[in-house]
């Protein structure tokens, strides 16, 4: 049944756990629309034939809709739409909340290619390799204009915006290959900005990652290590300590995943999005107790560099048993 409807509505292969969920709602909406449309068409057709004009001066009665009928016309679609809204929004919240054990991959859109960087080291252009049966979280940003990372087989797209991180998560249950397209118009070769997600069995994925690290020693520098280098070169460490001691700015030790109280009330979860925002637009949300003195780094940090800094900050967690370095980051879901 699923397969039949999927082909009937020209929907592509179901490459993610979300696609399987969301397609059922696709079918319900499209089938209801077709059925109600057919009903309205049939009623209209009956009226056209039954009440066609016979003489130039047919008398017609004055007919007004009774109030109960008007109420029905409003009530039936309203309850239908509300039902769809509730079902759809539950799925939306689910797909907007990445699970904690996801594998992070940094994605940078650039006219006109996709760059994928793994926190552990290797990076690739236009081909994203992920393990099957494991949630993957993509941290998206852009080097130039807005792009949108779209995998039709996953039923999912998310904009990549310069100067900030958005995220997207999926779990591909089976090994296979899925096309990546750019869904936000981004200029001359927008239509050529294509990539591929390659889903490998778990063991093959491990082997692929090892091979990547062996073959590309320079690019294989882990992002956290690179981030530490950049932090020193950019002078970040003149204001931020990595030891837990507050200085001109908040310490980076244990910063990631912490609720930070804000100057002027409220609090913010220090996740990838907030850390990036603070690099690009430091005065937007200043942590309580610190002077608003940090300069903006947009244009001075490439997307890869800001991602590396985030990874470096993520690696600086107070020593706790069972938690090790940034190879497989553990983080609090953003809960947005």
């Amino acid at each position, binding site marked *: 049944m699923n397969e039949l409807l999927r082909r009937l509505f020209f929907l592509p292969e179901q490459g993610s756990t979300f696609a399987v969920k969301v397609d059922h709602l696709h079918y319900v909406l499209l089938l209801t629309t077709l059925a109600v449309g057919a009903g309205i068409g049939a009623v209209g057709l009956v009226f056209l034939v039954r009440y066609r004009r016979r003489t130039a001066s047919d008398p017609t009665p004055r*007919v007004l809709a009774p109030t109960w009928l008007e109420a029905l016309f409003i009530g039936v679609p309203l309850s239908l739409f509300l039902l769809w809204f509730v079902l759809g929004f539950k799925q939306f919240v689910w797909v907007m909340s990445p699970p904690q054990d996801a594998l992070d991959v940094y994605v940078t859109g650039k006219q006109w290619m996709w760059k994928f960087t793994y926190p552990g080291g290797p990076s690739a252009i236009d081909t994203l390799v992920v393990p099957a049966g494991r949630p993957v979280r993509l941290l998206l940003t852009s080097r130039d204009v807005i792009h949108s990372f779209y995998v039709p087989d996953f039923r999912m797209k998310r904009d990549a915006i310069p*100067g900030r991180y958005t995220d997207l998560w999926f779990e591909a249950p089976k090994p296979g290959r899925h096309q990546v397209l750019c869904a936000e118009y981004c200029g001359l070769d927008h239509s050529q900005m294509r990539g591929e997600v390659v889903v490998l069995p778990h063991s093959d994925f491990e082997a692929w990652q090892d091979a990547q690290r062996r073959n590309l020693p320079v690019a294989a520098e882990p992002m956290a290590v690179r981030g530490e280098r950049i932090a020193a070169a950019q002078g970040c460490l003149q204001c931020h300590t990595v030891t837990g001691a507050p200085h001109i700015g908040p310490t980076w030790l244990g910063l990631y995943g912490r609720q930070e109280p804000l100057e002027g009330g409220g609090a913010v979860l220090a996740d990838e999005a907030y850390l990036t925002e603070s690099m690009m637009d430091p005065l937007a949300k200043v942590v309580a107790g610190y002077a608003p003195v940090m300069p903006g780094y947009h244009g001075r940090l490439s997307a890869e560099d800001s991602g590396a800094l985030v990874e470096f900050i993520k690696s600086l967690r107070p020593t706790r048993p069972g938690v090790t370095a940034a190879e497989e980051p553990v983080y609090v879901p953003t809960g947005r």
Partner: protein
Amino acid sequence: MSPPAAESYLTDGRTVWSWLTTHDHKRIGVMFLGLTLFFFLVGGVFALALRIELLTPGRTLMGHLAYNRMFTLHGVTMVWLFMIPAIPSAFGNFLVPLMIGARDVAFPRLNLASVYLYVLGASVALWGMFEGGADTGWTFYTPYSTTTGTAVLPVLMGVFIIGFSTILTGLNFIATVHTLRAPGLTWMKLPLFVWAIYGTSIIQVLATPVLGMVLLLVALERVVGAGIFDPARGGDPLLFQHLFWFYSHPAVYIMVLPSMGVISEAVCAFSRKNAFSYRMIVYSTLGIAFVGFFTWGHHMFASGQSTFGSGAFGAMSMLVAIFTAIKIFSWLGTLYRGSIALESPLLYTLGFMFFLFFGGMIGVAYSTTSLNLHWHDTYSVVAHFHFIMVGATVMAFLAALHYWFPKMSGRCFPAKLANGAAVLIIFGFIATFVPQFLLGNLGMPRRYADYPPHFQSLHVASTAGASLLAFGFLAIAGYLAWSLRYGAVAGANPWGSEGFEWRSASPPPTHNFSTPPEYPTGPHEYASEEVPHAA
């Protein structure tokens, strides 16, 4: 029945100068009609070129840059030079004073100024096209629009100027409906077309200034690097999208509400019935005008706005569909027990109702947040808004053109040819845009100059449909032009309509009425009290 002494508005002064300096709302309406038809032709030629390019993957007719410019100009031309002014500025100007028993609109000089502003704006935008044209899409999303090297500025400025024409027209209608209704014509006796134009005018006056502002901000950003939308200067690229859609989503209702007014008139006239639920049509018109302002965020579900915000915008968007559903039910109810004449305006009306239903229901599907993540920015969206803009607004425009052609020109057109063309247009429309829904389901993104080969068969189907549509439009242009000269003389009321505008002569005299009309009953009343309710 009108005395022969009164000269029609067409013959009162025959020089070009008398047209260029006229304050007569009917002449201004006709001028708008001519101008918008011209730009409909221009936008249509762009559309055909795009469809031919998409016939095959790879290069067919033009390169990527030419394609990107062409879809931008297609959008700009169709949205601002055709859709938005087509029904309100052309038919609204012609009909609103006639329908409410006024001699003219409230500010006739301002009305003329709105024509000149439109022409000025269109000229600036056209100049931009000859300068090479913008390649941003009609949405001008930053940061692309602030960084691309193409002629974005003249196109922006053209649209900015046209915005003033829209605002003036809206202002004029609001003042006219409030102050110039004939004695005895209460609000609840207003024709449904007037209500639709009134609702539209409110949106025009409230939303268009926001468009003007955001276009100026983009211009500032381009010229002096103001940094409002540039993250490098602390700006926010998404701010543009919020401001832009705050105008442009209500702008969809600037295009659709007037067409709903046309349909309400046509359904009553061609089934010879009172409106099934007049009050509900009126309230839903005002409802759409109001709720339309709270739905803009549904363009941004995939942009990274807050999850809860997306949910709120999704729910608000569904309310628009409720208001639309009320109207569709009421039109259907109006046909019940009527005396239905299948003239071409009614054929377009039936097409309109069907396309509006499907377009609207797919709109509900997109407001369902989780489903939107697949469909957003694909051809499915292209098909959806073409269902609303071509399937609804153009159908209604054609219905209006045929319904009021005798009123405006005093001539009839060949009915059989018109019916044939209407059927051709409806089938051409289905063949053009249904494949695009399927393309979107398959995952074909919008604004693609080129595409992976597995999308091709559906593109071929769509292009074939577009050529049918083109033949339909050519046929209409042919027989209407012929009828202007050789059509049978229409008489005051060839359709036997009870619409208030038919109480003056066809074509109407300069000051509309030789005797002041009276309004003892509500609009669209066909049954006298004596007619038995059981037929």
